[in-house]
Every structure is written in C-alpha cells, then in structure tokens.
C-alpha cells in the first residue's frame, strides 16, 4: 500500500505546470478566446515540444509510456490553465484507443507516432453524442456506433458549428457522409472498447474540473486578500471564509478519489468504471461549488468579462456534461450499490484493484 506519487511523476507534473504558467498565462488565454479559431497553433506546438502529447504513447513508438495515473495529475494542470484545446482527446483518450486497436490496423504505428510529435489531431465521436469538439481541425475522427468503429476524415462529415459559452471551445453537430467507410472494428469488441475510451474521457473531465476548481479558488483567495470593504479585507469576513473553506474541502476530498479511479483504470480493475463515475460526480460538484463561491467572493467583478475568473467558470460549465451526463454516472454508482451489497464494507476500499 503506497498511495503516493513517485518523485518522477511529481517532477513531470511540476514541469508541465511551470511551462503552462508561462505559456498559457491568462493574457495568452484571453487572446486566444478572442480569436476566431479559438486555437493557438504555437501553444499546441510548444505543448508537444514539452512532450505532453507523447505522454501516453508507448515507448516503442517514441513516447513516454505513461498511464492513467500520470494523466490524473496532468489533466488537473490542463484544467488549472484552462488549455483552450481538446488536446486531451488526442494525447490521452485517442492514444489509449489506438493502442487497443488490433495490430492489423495499418495506420496504428503512424498514428501513435504522429500523436507523440503533435502532428496528428484526433476527435472522438459516438453516435449517441450530440456534439464533437474540434471536429473541424481533426485529421482523424474515430466514430463509434453501437457495434462498429469507423475512421473518418473531416471531409467525410458534415459539420454545423455550435458556439459554446466557452469561446475557446469549438463544438460541432456532426453528420457522417454516407455510406460510411468499412469499420476498423466490429461486434461486441466495439462497445467494450468504447466503455474504456469513455472512462478515459470521463476521468480526464473530472481531473480538469478539479484543476479548474483549484484555479477558481486561487483567484478568489487572491481577490479577497486585497479587496477591502468596511475597512477590512473581505477575506476576513466569516461568510466568505466559510465558503472558500468548503471549496478547498471539496477539492481535497475529491483528489484521492480521482487517483484511485486512475489507478483502477491503469490496472484494468473491473470496478474502474464505478470509480470513474464516482469521481466524475464529485469533481463536477466541486467545480460547481468553486464557481458559485468564487463569483460571490469576487462580487460584481465576478460578473465581468475583464476578470480572469470568467474564463475558468465558463470552461468548467462547458465541461459539465462532456463525456456523459452526471445522471448516467449516478446511475452507474446506484446500480453497483444495489448489485454488490458489500461495496460499502469498510474493508473494500482497495479490494480488487488489479485486473
């Protein structure tokens, strides 16, 4: 039992954090938000050069061979800096997806290598999903139906742009041009693969929400420590203190839940989808609480476009239903609690965490 990160993992997180602190400072973000594309090719290139795109790529394909546990830290950083890009979809989720494809899939090696170098941009779509992020820029779109996985290029789909409140997001209603190309995977394996892919998307969503919550909290602490009313720093008023205390509590109590879920995924544990559901619920709640109390801590400033807070609030709001409605995750937990009467046995916390 060693519920800690290695020094290497912490160092890598620290490196990514320091890098983003400079490269994705709020001023940079704000510029990107105001551009039509909502994207900065330079930023994405710099991130790739930093090695982030190669994190999940197996070492055989020149990647770093990291897994879900490392991503549980990196996703928080990408959330903290509100990186205006769907790069997690490519670097984490798609990279995982591709490694799971049969070796017969001819492009497998090329895709993995190109993800690692930052050349390839991937979107992932499911027939039941309404919107696809960054589909217009995607070199490859993995399109799941109930029992087939197709690879589409973005000229084989028709896209309708649906502006999000997060100006850096690009969401599209996507309709594939028919007939679809032959699937690269068929049958039961598709649903099983999608479940794994969705779990990665969902846990990354939770990780980003936690990072966003932390950022909103940090911005609020800064603000209440310099804003005075009634001759006192507003941070000295108990009502605000208690609100911010509740935010840090929610964040701190959720982190270990995130890490266990990541560990369960990395070790192919059968309960991994349950643990992912659990952290998605908690992380989204934590982020909602952080948004609500941060606006309040900022007073009227919190309602403005000028203060950085708004970008983090909007990104967090935009990600609330991405990779699945919260109610789907709640039902997953409920079903498990009913199906497995001993799930709440005090000795179960780390039971069956290996495959």
């Amino acid at each position, binding site marked *: 039992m060693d519920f800690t990160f290695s020094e290497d993992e912490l160092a890598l997180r620290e490196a990514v954090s320091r890098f983003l602190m400079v490269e994705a400072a709020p001023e940079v973000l704000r510029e990107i938000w105001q551009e039509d594309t909502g994207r900065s090719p330079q930023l994405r290139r710099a991130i790739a050069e930093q090695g982030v795109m190669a994190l999940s790529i197996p070492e055989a394909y020149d990647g770093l061979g990291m897994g879900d546990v490392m991503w549980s830290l990196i996703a928080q950083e990408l959330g903290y800096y509100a990186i205006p890009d769907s790069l997690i979809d490519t670097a984490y989720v798609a990279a995982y997806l591709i490694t799971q494809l049969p070796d017969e899939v001819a492009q497998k090696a090329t895709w993995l290598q190109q993800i690692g170098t930052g050349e390839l941009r991937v979107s992932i779509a499911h027939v039941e999903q309404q919107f696809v992020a960054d589909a217009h820029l995607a070199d490859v779109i993995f399109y799941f139906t109930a029992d087939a996985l197709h690879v589409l290029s973005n000229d084989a789909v028709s896209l309708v742009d649906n*502006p999000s409140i997060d100006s850096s997001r690009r*969401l599209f209603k996507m309709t594939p041009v028919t007939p679809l190309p032959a699937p690269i995977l068929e049958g039961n394996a598709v649903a099983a693969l999608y479940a794994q892919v969705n779990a990665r998307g969902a846990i990354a969503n939770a990780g980003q929400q936690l990072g966003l919550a932390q950022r909103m909290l940090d911005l609020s602490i800064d603000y209440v420590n310099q804003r005075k009313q009634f001759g006192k720093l507003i941070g000295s008023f108990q009502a605000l203190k208690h609100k911010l205390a509740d935010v840090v509590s929610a964040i701190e109590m959720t982190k270990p839940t995130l890490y266990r879920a990541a560990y369960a995924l990395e070790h192919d544990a059968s309960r991994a989808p349950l643990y992912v559901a659990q952290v998605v619920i908690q992380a989204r709640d934590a982020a909602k609480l952080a948004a609500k109390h941060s*606006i*309040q801590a900022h007073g*009227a400033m919190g309602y403005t476009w*000028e203060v950085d807070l708004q970008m983090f609030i909007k990104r967090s709001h935009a990600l609330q*239903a991405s990779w699945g*409605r919260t*109610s789907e995750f709640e039902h997953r937990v*409920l079903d498990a609690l009913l199906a497995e009467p001993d799930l709440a046995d005090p000795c179960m916390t780390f039971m069956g965490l290996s495959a």
Partner: protein
Amino acid sequence: MNLTFTPEQCAFREQVRTWLAHNKPSKKLKSYDTKEGFEEHRAWEKVLYEARYSMVMWPEELGGRGCDLIEWLIFEEEYYRADAPMRVNQNGQLLLGPTLIEFGTEAQKKRFLPPMASSEHMWAQGWSEPNAGSDMAAIRSKAVREGDEYIISGQKTWSTRAIYADWTFGLFRTDPDSSRHHGLSYIVVPLDAPGITIRPIKALNGKDAFAEIFFDDVRVPIDNRIGEEGQGWRVAMATAGFERGLLLRSPARFMQPVKKLLELYRHYQAQVDADLSLRKAVVDCWNMAESYALSAYYTVGRLQNGEKIGAESSINKIIWSELDLKIHETAMAILGEQAELMGSAPHAYADHDWMEGFLFAQAGPIYAGTNEIQRNIVAERLLNLPR
C-alpha cells in the same frame, strides 16, 4: 381573508392581457445591453407609456394609472406571461422614481418623472464606487457647492447600461469633512454634461452591460439635488428596502421561467425522470416561486393594514436571487450537452434562451446588495442579533 380577485381586478387583468396580445413586439427584441437593442427597448417603453402601462402605480398626471399594489402584481403577471420585453429603464423607474415621488419637489417630479415613464430619459444608477460596493457608505465622489451649482468629481462604477443612458443618479459627498453615512447628497446628473467620461465594462455575456462613470468637475445646478443637502443617505435608504425587495423583482418575473422550466421538463421528460435529483429540483423551483408570489400578495395585505415593511425585503432579495439561480441551474442540468451552447447556436434548445438567463442569474446574489449583506440585515434588524 378573501383570495379571489374582485371583478374590477379581473377586468384590469383582462384589459392588460388583451392590450399586450395586440401590442407587444411580434419578435424578440435584441439584447438591451447593445446599442441597437437598447433603442428597440426604448421604443417599446414609449409604446407602453402611451398606453399608460409604463408605470401603472404612478398617478395619472405623471403618466401612470394610480394602480394599487394588487393591480401592479396583476400587471406584472400579465406582462411576464406575455413574454413581453425586459424593462430597460427599470433602474430609473423603480429606484429613482419612488424616491422622487417621496422626496422630490413638485418641479422635480414634473421635470423628471414623465420622461422617465416614457423612457425619453433613460437612467443609469450611480451607487457603487470602486471602493464602495457592499460598503456603500464608503463613497468618496464629491459634489462641491459653488453658488447655484455643484461641481462633481470622482468615479462611479457598475452603472448598468450607462454608455447608452441619458442620466445618472447617486450619492455624492457634499460635506468634505464628513465620513460614512453623513454629509452625502442625492444628486442627478445628465450623462452628456461636460467633464463626464464613460468607460464600458463587459459583463459575463460579453456585452457592455455596465460602465464606469468618471466625473471631472462636472457642473450641475443645485436643483438636481433630491431632498436636503447632507440627507442623501436617508433619502436613498427610505425607499431602498421596499423597492429592492418587492418592486424591483415581481414574482411573475420568476414564475414565468418556472413555467418554461416545466416545458423543458416535459420536452426532456425521459432524461429528467431518469435523473436521481432533477425532479426534486423542478418541484422545489415551483414551490419557491409560488412562495415568493404568495409572499408578495401577503406582504401587500400587511401594507394595506398599515404595517411597515423593513428588513423583510432583504429576505425577498435572498429568495428571488437564489431562486433564479436554482431555476437556471436546474435547466442547465436538464439540457445536458446543450447546456454550454450560446442561445444563438443552431442546435441550442429552441424555445428559450436559457444561457442568457443563466449568466444573468449569476449576478443576482451580488447586485442590489450582496446576499451576505442581506443576511446580515435580516439577522441584525429582523432578529435583533448583535452587530
């Protein structure tokens, strides 16, 4: 207790309903936080005024109908159920208007109220300053008397739609040696006066919903003062509570979104019914909106009996702002993937722009006195807890 409307009240309702059905704009006006939308709303206010529906409670000679509070509630119910345009001049009409009626001279009333009712004059409030938000008594902007004029200098902020408006009103320090609540005067200032600079502030929705107003030796006649010199705080407070608590936000304004929330529920019934808590949230929203409506009528009953309403209006402020948040948070949870879309997105929910309301609801617990201040007021003035 008699909870049926009189025939006269029913007739008034019918009359308002019919008039709105025939006269309200056939399509949704542009956002009044844009110049173009602002003017569209001004035009609509003129239509209202000409039919004497702009300020129904004001006396006839000021352009109103002398309605009582029950009729006002009825008017509001019909106005919101018709989805008629938002009231663009409400900061003037609801905050300054009653103050003028209570403290203004006859000349001031004649000069300011009819063009306010018609929205020929659009008013922006000038309460807050950069260092006087929740702590409004920390106001520093000065008005120095020189003969028959005040020379105003300083800065106001969070002035709603001030870049489009014609006039502002607020408190200014007329006694330079005074502090806190003392030595303030309530003064109105035309926004085209020399020395005024207005800088827009973008709201969450990206529009210029507020502004900072800089006063650089702006001269206004002393006739622009409402009430006595140095009595500004008392003038401002006399109407603040009741207006903010009830008139500023009629119950109908929240019942109508609850009605839309129920439509949304029915539209996505399978998803909502499958959710572990959304049905309860919908029930709670309706219950809260109903309570707020009932409480408004009940308050009117108490006022009719000669009771005074004071800190109770802070309860109202807390309730409506948190209800509005809850309605919109519930809608967002129902909308799922669509919840992040701008109202203009092709695949956004078609029948109502929930995003617009969601963003505006975020400001509810902050403006018109933060809910922290309101809870302090409730505790200290209603429950007599120590300061």
